């Protein structure tokens, strides 16, 4: 062999070896299984976690090269304490959901959360469908770094007023539109025995005090002072409690209470009591979440006691300046974050792969509904149905709920999904109820957007401030404290004694900096 040929052979051999080793390295990198710990609150808290031999774990390992460890995260104060302990131990999960904004900002400030912007491109479909909303992304951006994947709430503006249409018809009344008309209808519902049982046991207006501000949201909405803040523009930004219209709304609430058209127990009712009462047919007008009112399992007790009862979505009352609002809303839903530790360890792509897989197709159905033919079927419109499914294996059966605990990663709020989750049903006397029609009707009513307030960090004395405002408001509403210039000015000036002005200044700056307030 010639010398040059020898050289060529050696070079070729070395090149081939390098190429092969490169290929091997590339291939092993592709096949390397990434350990991923994901903490999410349970989709169904009453059900346990999926078992270790859950088929989905196997699928994720084989198809995504991810060794997934899913932990059902505790919720509430204990859950936050646990996250705090994990943070202190620098042991935060790779991917987890955060519900407490304050804690989110704390973790971000402590550099415990990873920058997720670079991984978004590895989940193109999910990115397109979920992370293209600038307002939502702002909520997850701290000091210019995107440290969270802020998803939209699947269903927002879900709460609106409902009215007993059957009572309106029986008493020959028109649907009320203004505050004055609301008061008149509420009076008629209270005094003219709309249920015809001969007893004085109905109230025009049912109030759930667990909702702010004290369940009279629509009245404050009619005066344009719904929610905590006046967000109209930078010049007017302040606590709504300072607004002259806040006083007017409170005076109107006081007049409703004086007219005795509201359940006298309203101030001390709990949500469950409130719901029991409207289901018993005691309220003519009340605000309620669409599913809490119109989903089959929630509607059943109402149906049993009011077989001819008909609930209808009601537009919120229009105030003197033509304003109206059913309630506040924020379209921000699940906030997913990745720990900095996970991102630094190169797990970002694995996180993106998992999220993309959960977004559609196989992953979507596996996490949200189980297995086709076993846990669900499709009807002719490709909507998920339980026809032909053994009830014991149905995706919503008690025994199967543990297999859909991670469904928050998958659910997308599209029409087909909602049709499956909020199915049509018939009442005891054969009327058809379409829960999603009530959602759409609720969505169509005016609401006040408060999404920007998610960026406002609580004041150091937030609890004192809240207590001060709420106590005074209820005292004014109930008439325990007369509403006049002296008492009202005392109330407003008392806000500054609690340094509300400093809180307002900080909040204003936050919103201006974020671009929410101009």
């Amino acid at each position: 062999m010639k010398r040059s040929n020898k050289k060529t052979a050696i070079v070729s051999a070395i090149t081939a070896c390098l190429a092969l080793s490169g290929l091997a390295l590339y291939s092993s990198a592709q096949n390397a299984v990434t350990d991923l710990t994901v903490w999410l609150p349970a989709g169904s808290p009453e059900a346990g976690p999926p078992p270790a031999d859950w088929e989905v774990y196997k699928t994720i390992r084989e198809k995504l090269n991810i060794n997934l460890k899913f932990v059902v995260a505790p919720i509430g104060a204990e859950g936050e304490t646990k996250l705090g302990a994990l943070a202190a131990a620098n042991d935060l999960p790779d991917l987890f959901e955060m519900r407490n904004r304050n804690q989110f900002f704390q973790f971000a400030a402590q550099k415990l959360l990873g920058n997720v912007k670079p991984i978004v491109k590895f989940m193109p479909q999910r990115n397109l469908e979920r992370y293209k909303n600038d307002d939502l992304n702002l909520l997850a951006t701290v000091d210019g770094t995107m440290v969270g994947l802020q998803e939209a709430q699947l269903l927002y503006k879900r709460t609106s007023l409902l009215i007993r249409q059957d009572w309106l018809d029986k008493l020959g009344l028109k649907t009320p539109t203004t505050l004055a008309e609301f008061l008149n209808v509420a009076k008629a519902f209270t005094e003219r025995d709309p249920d015809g049982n001969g007893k004085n046991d109905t109230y025009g207006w049912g109030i759930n005090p667990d909702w702010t501000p004290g369940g009279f949201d629509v009245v404050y909405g009619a005066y344009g002072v719904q929610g905590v803040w006046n967000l109209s523009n930078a010049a007017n930004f302040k606590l709504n409690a300072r607004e002259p219209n806040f006083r007017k709304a409170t005076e109107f609430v006081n007049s409703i209470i004086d007219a005795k058209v509201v359940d006298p127990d309203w101030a001390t009712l709990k949500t469950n009591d409130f719901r029991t009462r409207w289901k018993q047919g005691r309220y003519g007008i009340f605000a309620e979440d669409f599913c809490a009112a119109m989903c089959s399992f929630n509607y059943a007790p109402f149906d049993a006691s009011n077989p001819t009862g008909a609930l209808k979505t009601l537009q919120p009352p229009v105030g003197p300046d033509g304003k109206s609002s059913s309630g506040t809303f924020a379209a921000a839903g699940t906030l997913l974050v990745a720990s900095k530790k996970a991102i630094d360890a190169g797990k970002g792509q694995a996180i993106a792969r998992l999220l993309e897989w959960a977004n559609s197709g196989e992953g979507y159905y596996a996490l949200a509904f189980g297995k086709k033919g076993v846990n669900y079927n499709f009807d002719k419109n490709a909507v998920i149905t339980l026809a032909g499914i053994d009830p014991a294996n149905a995706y919503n059966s008690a025994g199967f709920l543990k297999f859909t605990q991670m469904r928050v990663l998958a659910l997308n709020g599209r029409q087909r999904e909602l049709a499956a989750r909020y199915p049509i049903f018939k009442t005891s006397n054969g009327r058809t109820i379409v829960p999603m029609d009530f959602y759409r009707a609720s969505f169509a009513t005016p609401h006040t957007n408060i999404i920007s307030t998610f960026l406002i960090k609580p004041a150091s004395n937030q609890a004192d401030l809240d207590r001060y405002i709420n106590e005074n408001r209820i005292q004014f509403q109930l008439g325990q404290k007369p509403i006049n210039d002296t008492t009202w000015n005392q109330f407003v000036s008392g806000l500054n004694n609690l340094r509300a002005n400093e809180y307002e200044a900080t909040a204003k700056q936050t919103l201006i900096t974020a671009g929410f307030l101009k």
Partner: protein
Amino acid sequence: MVKSFGSRGDKVFDFGINFFLILVLMVTIVPLSYVVLVSVAPLVLPGQPTALLSFAAYSELLAQPSFLRAALNSFVLLVGGVTLNMVLTTLSAFALSRKSLPGRGIILAFILFTFLFNAGLIPQFLLVRSLGLLDTLPSVVLPGAISVYNLLIMIAFLQNLPESLGEAARIDGASEFQVLWYVMLPLSKPILLTVGLFYAVNNWNEFFLPILFLNNRDLMPLPVVLRDILTSFNSAEYIDGNRQASIASPEALKMAAVVLTTLPMLAVYPWIQSHFTKGVLLGGVKE
């Protein structure tokens, strides 16, 4: 001659005491009976026939798949925890009750220090984590294996037992363990039952430590799982709309959960009540 009745002043005093105790009894019984009554209150639907009592809330809770597993976990924590608590507390108390123990004062001072100044949650979490105990049942019982309060009660009790009994046994050739086992423990039934009850109640009601140290929901005890079940019932509007209706009211479910968690302790207490009272008093009396 012993008078069967005291003076007028005594009668007034007795009446006052009895009246006060009746008030205390009422304050205790009224909320308890309220809880029981609400738990068996039927779901009232006007126009529907209503039973006087309904155990729907209990059957609904007991039908939850996670309930029995959680009850078993609670039972394991109770038995394992109380056994560990009692063994460690008794051995420590026996040693520390001996005034001749070298360094007794310093050891007691250290123990008392932990009683007054707790290390806090995060260090506790870090310790359990570095011991590799996270996600194991021992992580729930080990941090509270010895309660300083219970230890001090037991030390005080053992100190009041005549030292001569132990000395006599030692002269007869008994080892320290035999002195404890054959002499001291048979005389310590009241304090053992009292401290055991304290530990049992603590272990049974343990809520926060399991949440902090356990990730596997299959290991969670009853209080945590009951809380989850109630959370689920209370957030009915946020879950899928095709869920089955509850056959009991949310309040009944809540109260039934309270009764179910309280029942085992309530059932045990009357059997050891007399020892319990005696034990607490004896621990604090010096002859």
